[in-house]
């Protein structure tokens, strides 16, 4: 049963006051904190939203205790053997993103979903991938949750631009989405160096065998930082392919690097390729 608003405020007020330096180093009563959190959570969705209502934009008021209480709640529901309170908590948080709450508050809710959320919130996170301010934390929460994340990222890719596009390209690599290989290959030819670098790394991390020639070409034709990163992607792809039993393609990558990186400044790459080849021998 949920608390009355004043009772809920009373429970939140059981969170510690910052000490004179603004820290949680003194007057920390572990039992008191945990007892209050249990009571708040017992009140279900209404109490959770009540605490969320206490959150404000940074600098626009004092929400120190509510801010801490919400995180304590996220930690608490993860400790329980029963998964239902965790799902209820994360669904409630997910229902509060994408609306009119201040963006910094929504970012905070998303970060708590990164702590405690599961597959039940991936669609809600997917919906805010198109929001320039929420895309970054949402993509990170999706990557942390893992299950169901790839589909959300894949669907968002064609409709986002700028930093969101970079974020999604990278995270498609993080979640190793094989269904995004086509889109990532297109991004290898992008005009923006950051997109190209993100795409070659994503393809390498996915371990896509059909990308080997494209990655080698990208590395051969790049300069500076991009060349370093594209070359790393080639070595990473070779390792992924070798682990997946695709030895001949791995050997082809290593031999190419061994034979093309012969100038003194890049001899270490040739040596790395030789080491990779030696493992296969």
């Amino acid at each position, binding site marked *: 049963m949920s608390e009355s608003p004043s009772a809920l405020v009373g429970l939140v007020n059981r969170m510690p006051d910052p000490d004179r330096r603004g*820290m*949680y180093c003194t007057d920390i009563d572990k039992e008191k904190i945990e007892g209050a*959190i249990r009571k708040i959570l017992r009140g279900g969705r209404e109490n959770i939203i009540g605490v969320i209502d206490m959150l404000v934009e940074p600098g626009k008021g004092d929400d120190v205790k509510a801010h801490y209480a919400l995180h304590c709640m996220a*930690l608490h529901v993860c400790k329980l053997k029963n998964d239902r309170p965790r799902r209820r908590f994360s669904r409630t948080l997910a229902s509060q993103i994408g609306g009119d709450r201040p963006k910094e508050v929504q970012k905070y809710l998303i970060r708590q979903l990164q702590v405690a959320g599961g597959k039940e919130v991936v669609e809600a996170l997917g919906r805010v991938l198109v929001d320039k301010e929420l895309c970054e934390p949402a993509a*990170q929460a999706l990557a942390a949750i893992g299950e169901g994340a790839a589909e959300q990222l894949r669907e968002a890719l064609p409709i986002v631009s700028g930093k969101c596009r970079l974020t999604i390209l990278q995270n498609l690599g993080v979640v190793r989405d094989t269904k995004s290989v086509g889109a990532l290959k297109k991004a290898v030819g992008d005009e923006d160096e950051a997109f190209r670098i993100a795409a070659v790394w994503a393809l390498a991390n996915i371990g896509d065998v059909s990308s080997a020639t494209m990655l080698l070409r990208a590395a051969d034709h790049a300069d500076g930082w991009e060349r370093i990163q594209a070359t790393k992607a080639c*070595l990473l792809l070779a390792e992924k392919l070798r682990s997946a039993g695709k030895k001949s393609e791995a050997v082809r990558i290593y031999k190419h690097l061994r034979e093309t990186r012969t100038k003194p400044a890049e001899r270490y790459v040739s040596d*790395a390729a030789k080491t990779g080849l030696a493992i296969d021998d």
Partner: protein
Amino acid sequence: MQKSKRVTRRQFLKSSVGTAAAFTIVPRRVLGGPGNTPPSETFGGALIGCGGRGNGTFNGLGPNVEKLAICDVKFVKHADNKKVYTDFRRVLERKDIDVVAIATHPGWHALISIAAMEAGKDVLCEKPMTRFIAEGRAVADAEKRYNRIFQIGTYGRFGRSRNQGDILTHKIMKSGLLKDCKGVHIKRGGLKVREWSGMVNVKPQPIPDTLDWDMYCGPAPLRPYHPHRFGGTHRGYWDYEGGGLADMGQHHFDPVQWTFAKDDTSPVEIESFAPPAHPEACGMWGWVELKYADGLTFVMDSTEWPENQKPSYTRKESRGVSLSDLSEEDQKKIKEMPDPEPLVGFGDAIRTRKQAGGHAAAAHRCATILHLANISIRMGRKIQYDPVKEEIVGDEEANRLVNQPMRAPWHL
């Protein structure tokens, strides 16, 4: 990009064969000889992160390193991209730089170390090595993939490796003959909990025009600026480090890890006493107990837990490991074991290409001790760790702190 006119080790190696027959007048230091270091032992260096630990870390590179570049996100007003930089990527592109000292906040340590090795540089990285466990494995992978030298900026293990008592313990533990180890190492205090906690009530402030705040945050969430998040006090925020435990822990536990021969494994059970952690600011904790598979236990007792709300750690007492823990037959085997090879310092390592004593894989295992302690504190529960898979067992949410997503374009 303007290149230095000095002859670096790489340039010397590159040109020495082709021009050996050509007559030219060269400076004395290029030829070497008494009082002059030959170029084959002179290195071009860069310092990335020029805060309080910057010069000290750079000096750790040794005397034969010329500082060709300095880089810091606070150099926005006077960066010239020739000697002074704000973006480490521009530094790493330079072919005349052989070694890099990294003294940024630890949220950058792994990424810059990896990038430097990908660019063919050797690395001396200030402690603590990493911000989370997966970063350390990625650094160790890069060290191996590119055959680069990596040394962590703490040196206590070098002294331990010359001490007869520590050598004996090392041999006993390394032998694997001690099946049920009763050893308990307790570190009481010295982990600067109060000193390196974060503020929970920071109010956003304008970003100084001298600072690239986005680059400072790097892989961590882009937060509103506050001066307490910058400079030495960054240690109190999970975004950049892990409080005094992470900051001082590598100094304390790296030597102990060597003594107990745990450079290639990690604790399997971790339990802590702490209140629920704040999401952004590091704060108070009581103690942490970390047990290895063979029974060896490390303990961190903060000794800073408020006295009226105890406890300090009382569950176990300190106990060493000695020959008498073994059968007579096994004692004989230990006495016959050769002493471990002396650890190689960074300067010798970059010349001989032998692995440095504080190499990435060992430093990563030490950082893992600290991260596991902090994960147990942050999750508020006992955790089990698989040191081979480097994952927390059966705890999906805790594993999210083992490998944390990064803000693009930064990734492992």
